[in-house]
């Protein structure tokens, strides 16, 4: 089994029970209760079905219960393997073509309608939903939070890195996984707040009710007065030849496998997109002992925070700009990926192709708000607000404030809120926390003195200040340019005890400590978030901000700041460049002779793929994954029928598949452009319930008689 045994941040899961189950008749094992898909991937099984249209292999793609690509026959019934908990003795089978409906012909045992009532339904228990729940709970509202995942916290539970922002506002310096617990506790301190997990909302109806597919087993109708949509975001797709192969997955799916389920899903990955999600995914991969071939960005600059990018580069992972993926290929799953430089129109430049042997390609090209329920509710005349990514894509820290503000606004709309309940500071804070990176500043060179002092490798304005608040001597201040936490920190006092609090808390790992210990020697203290149990007696490569190796020396001492779960490593180095040393290269990448630059040294390799084939507009590539409809089919249909309405593509079954157009709706604009239609003129897809497929037996709660009529809404739901 490919499991992550020694994760530097995540502790091994307790009380895991290894159980046997059958996969296509072969006995294998996995942990009880983990998703079937995760168990299979840890066993190196990546193909879950062969598509009914063309027999193409299908595997895990979103790991989020959304796309349905992971559907398998589980105990004879087609189910999404990414949300089906593994049980002992399960019979799991690959689906070939259309699944056969099992002949369970015994009469219907019972049909029951279950419904509860609440004042406010919150969809999503991520940072925005939990913050909104706490706020509304504090005002005395009955609040029901429904989340589709097994635990509350949204994407926070995948975030092993420390938070940006400020300590006062949003737990900066604390890891996302821990913030999830804090927010949940804050919400649950109010007795009128109930959180339902494993409870996807599958429909919002005109009669002000929502349908919840509770525990992926039964159907609960929730009558509510008002709605908070905090459903987060879904990952945007990127269409290229081979993107439909198993092994090409969304970056969030990778994080789910690695950080939630502790599955060492792949050996070597390649990441498309340099936003924070892509950058962090690379970091997560290294923490999980998975190799990263590189991050590839079509734009001319890194999209995420510079400190993230620097951190990745220092660890030896190259970030290639003006470059994109042109193809993934392999037998049954990804074995190789091709990249090429792009011109200013983002088209691959012939002769610049380069290939990598990888077993996974991560798509991290941005997020799109999950706001269908908001639009639907508004159309139905239901009082509704959105918060977090469902409202605006930004950091989780800003989502917390979005949640608070949305909740207070909703209370006012309901005429029940306290006047002045909205703290005018919240919206300001939310906006600052949601800020895109600002300007970059050059810092002056530092000459180490006899006393410790911090050195900042934080030169881009981002909303972050925990170093300033954690310093016991208040020796770190923000340079007053914008007058908020976007400002850069600097060493203001002359006193530093070398306690390392700032080094350990910095989410960007962009602070070091230096002091001169001899005429030509200095000590430097560096943060380290990997295991320190082996290999440290050898020389380690110390690098500058961008990853150039400056020195190879052994550690002279190490200590762990438990509160931050971060190691501080001390080295003795040449005083001349001590203040330029920003980090340690990752052990795995130390063999590489020198860090790769941000541009590929392009070879005119005899390419096995023609220029036409490497085009991103390869017409034979599937756009609609559910129904396997190619770009060519869509373009032809648009031309032939003079189409200006995306809904007409449903004649081709585009958008009619299991995902309901969630994946392809962002991709079809390209088809219209190729067909010569201005995408601005296009009438978009109409969204309808259900949001997620629900078996008929569950819709009438047939299975509930087995549970002894246990009531679904436990608290706050009369």
């Amino acid at each position, binding site marked *: 089994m490919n499991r992550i045994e020694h994760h530097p941040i995540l502790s091994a899961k307790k009380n895991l029970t290894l159980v046997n189950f059958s996969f296509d008749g072969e006995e294998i094992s996995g942990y009880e209760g983990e998703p079937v898909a995760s168990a299979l991937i840890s066993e190196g099984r990546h193909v879950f079905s062969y598509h009914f249209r063309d027999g193409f292999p299908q595997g895990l793609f979103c790991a989020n219960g959304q796309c349905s690509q992971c559907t398998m026959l589980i105990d004879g019934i087609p189910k999404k393997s990414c949300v089906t908990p593994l049980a002992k003795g399960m019979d799991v089978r690959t689906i070939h073509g259309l*699944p056969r409906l099992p002949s369970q012909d015994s009469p219907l045992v019972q049909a029951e309608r279950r419904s509860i009532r609440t004042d406010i339904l919150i969809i999503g228990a991520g940072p925005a939903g939990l913050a909104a729940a706490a706020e509304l709970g504090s005002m005395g509202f009955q609040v029901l939070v429904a989340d589709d995942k097994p635990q509350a916290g949204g994407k926070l539970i995948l975030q092993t890195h420390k938070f940006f922002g400020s300590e006062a506002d949003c737990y900066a310096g604390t890891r996302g996984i821990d913030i999830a617990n804090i927010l949940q506790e804050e919400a649950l301190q109010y007795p009128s707040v109930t959180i339902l997990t494993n409870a996807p909302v599958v*429909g919002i*109806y005109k*009669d002000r009710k929502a349908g919840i597919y509770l525990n992926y087993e039964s159907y609960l109708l929730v009558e509510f007065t008002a709605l908070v949509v905090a459903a987060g975001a879904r990952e945007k797709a990127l269409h290229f030849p081979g993107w439909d192969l198993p092994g090409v997955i969304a970056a969030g799916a990778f994080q789910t496998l690695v950080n939630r389920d502790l599955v060492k899903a792949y050996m070597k990955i390649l990441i498309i997109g340099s936003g924070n999600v892509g950058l962090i995914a690379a970091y997560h991969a290294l923490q999980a002992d998975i190799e990263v071939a590189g991050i590839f960005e079509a734009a001319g600059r890194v999209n995420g925070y510079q400190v993230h990018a620097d951190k990745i580069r220092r660890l030896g992972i190259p970030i290639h700009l003006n470059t994109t993926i042109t193809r993934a290929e392999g037998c049954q799953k990804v074995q190789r990926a091709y990249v090429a430089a792009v011109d200013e129109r983002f088209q691959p430049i012939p002769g610049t192709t380069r290939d990598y042997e990888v077993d996974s390609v991560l798509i991290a090209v941005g997020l799109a708000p999950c706001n269908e329920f908001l639009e639907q509710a508004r*159309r139905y005349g239901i009082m509704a607000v959105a918060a977090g990514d469902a409202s605006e894509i930004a950091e989780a820290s800003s989502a917390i404030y979005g949640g608070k503000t949305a909740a207070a606004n909703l209370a006012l709309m309901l005429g029940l809120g306290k006047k002045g309940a909205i703290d005018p500071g919240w919206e300001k804070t939310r906006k600052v926390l949601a800020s895109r990176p600002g300007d970059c500043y050059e810092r002056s060179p530092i000459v180490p003195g006899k006393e410790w002092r911090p050195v900042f490798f934080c030169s881009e304005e981002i909303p972050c200040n925990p170093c300033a608040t954690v310093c016991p001597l208040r020796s770190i201040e923000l340079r007053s340019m914008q007058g908020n936490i976007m400002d850069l920190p600097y060493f203001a006092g002359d006193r530093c005890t070398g306690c390392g609090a700032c080094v350990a808390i910095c989410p960007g790992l962009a602070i070091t400590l230096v002091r001169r210990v001899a005429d030509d020697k200095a000590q430097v203290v560096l943060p380290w978030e990997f295991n320190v149990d082996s290999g440290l007696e050898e020389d380690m490569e110390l690098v500058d901000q961008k990853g150039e190796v400056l020195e190879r020396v052994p550690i002279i001492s190490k200590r762990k700041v438990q509160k931050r779960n971060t190691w501080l490593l001390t080295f003795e180095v040449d005083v001349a460049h001590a203040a330029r040393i920003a980090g340690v290269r990752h052990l795995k990448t130390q063999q590489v002779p020198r860090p790769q630059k941000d541009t590929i040294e392009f070879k005119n390799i005899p390419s096995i793929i023609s220029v036409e084939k490497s085009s991103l507009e390869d017409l034979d590539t599937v756009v609609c994954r559910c129904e396997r409809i190619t770009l060519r089919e869509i373009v032809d249909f648009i031309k032939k*029928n*003079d189409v200006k309405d995306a809904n007409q593509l449903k004649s081709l079954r585009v958008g009619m598949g299991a995902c*309901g157009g969630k994946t392809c709706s962002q991709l079809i604009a390209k088809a219209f452009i190729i067909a010569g239609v201005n995408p601005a003129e296009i009438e978009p897809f109409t969204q309808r319930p259900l949001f997620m497929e629900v078996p008929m*037996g569950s819709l009438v709660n047939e299975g509930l008689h087995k549970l002894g009529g246990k009531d679904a809404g436990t608290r706050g739901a009369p």
Partner: protein
Amino acid sequence: MKNYDVVIIGAGSVGLPLSWQLAEKGLKVALLDEEASWGRGQNRAAIGGIRATHSDPAKIRICLESIRLFSSMQEKYGLDMEWREGGYLYIAFDEATKQQFCALLKKQKAAGLDIEWVGPETIYRLAPGLRTDDLIGGTYSPQDGYASPLMAASAFHYLALAAGVSFFFNTKVKAIHREGERISSIEAGGESFSADIFVNAAGAKAADIAKIAGFDLPVFPDCHEAGVTEPVERFMEPMIVDVRSDAESGNYYFYQAATGQIVFCITPRPQIWGRDKDSTSTFLPLVVRRMLELYPRLRNLRVRRTWRGMYPMTPDGLPIIGYPDMAVNFLQLVGMCGQGFMMGPGLGSIISRSIAASGCHERPEGFTDYGFLFDELSINRSFDHAELLS
């Protein structure tokens, strides 16, 4: 002013096939619709059933013509509409219903329909797993079937485009001008359209169009909800219609589409009059309970999506076909009562022949075969007999 031989209002189930068949016969046709593209009224809400199994001979004749068209589209034009000759099965659970069905059988056969009474064993063979405990049998019409309304609309749109029909989308009718007993022109979308014949094929909005022209049509939309499941390997053939009703609902029906999904629909009780097409929470638990009581095997099938559509109803459940006395060149093809999809192509075939033969005369020379349609389905009829297989 734009001049045409025929201007049709409504690019839906009725207007699309009519426009194509008129243009094929050499007429200059314009098709107007207020929506952004074709088939966006009730066509896309139709579940796809196509039957000639009706109680009214006129409807039987129209739908036999439709089936002739649907079943030949692939072979003749290479256009896939996912037509499948799966048959229709009306099931009976009591003697009274059996008597009623059997009495209809004679009428239906006389009108040319292939239909027989079948016992529970045959029904079980056609739909394995269906509960046959109380079932006494049903009528089976093997030449009925189903097709994809979306694909059919796109196919008819394509044929119409190729035949030279001019389409005007996002074009809402603002005014209809009359000169004496004739319509002279229509103003829509900032343009004026003149024609020898105008056609009201506006489906659920037919009465609104008539109102603009200055007369009333007894067409009142009511709402029905429908749903579709994931696709599975074929396990049943016919459209199954259960005509029983209970406290919450009337009949319901479902079939397995050519591509494997189960598509289903139910008649709510009381009927939901009006145009609110937003889904309600009551539909799924209701229809699913009734389907599972009859067919428990469906319990593991996942429902993918639901929607709501309108049936443009008339007082007697039969369509209105004809030229009103106050607007003698304004053909009404309205009040399809939820069957526009199955009647549209057949109507288009019959009506286009009638128009091509001699314009807006209801009984042109050499058109005696179908002339009776205009009598039976006349706008001037009394509306006092009721369609039994609505």
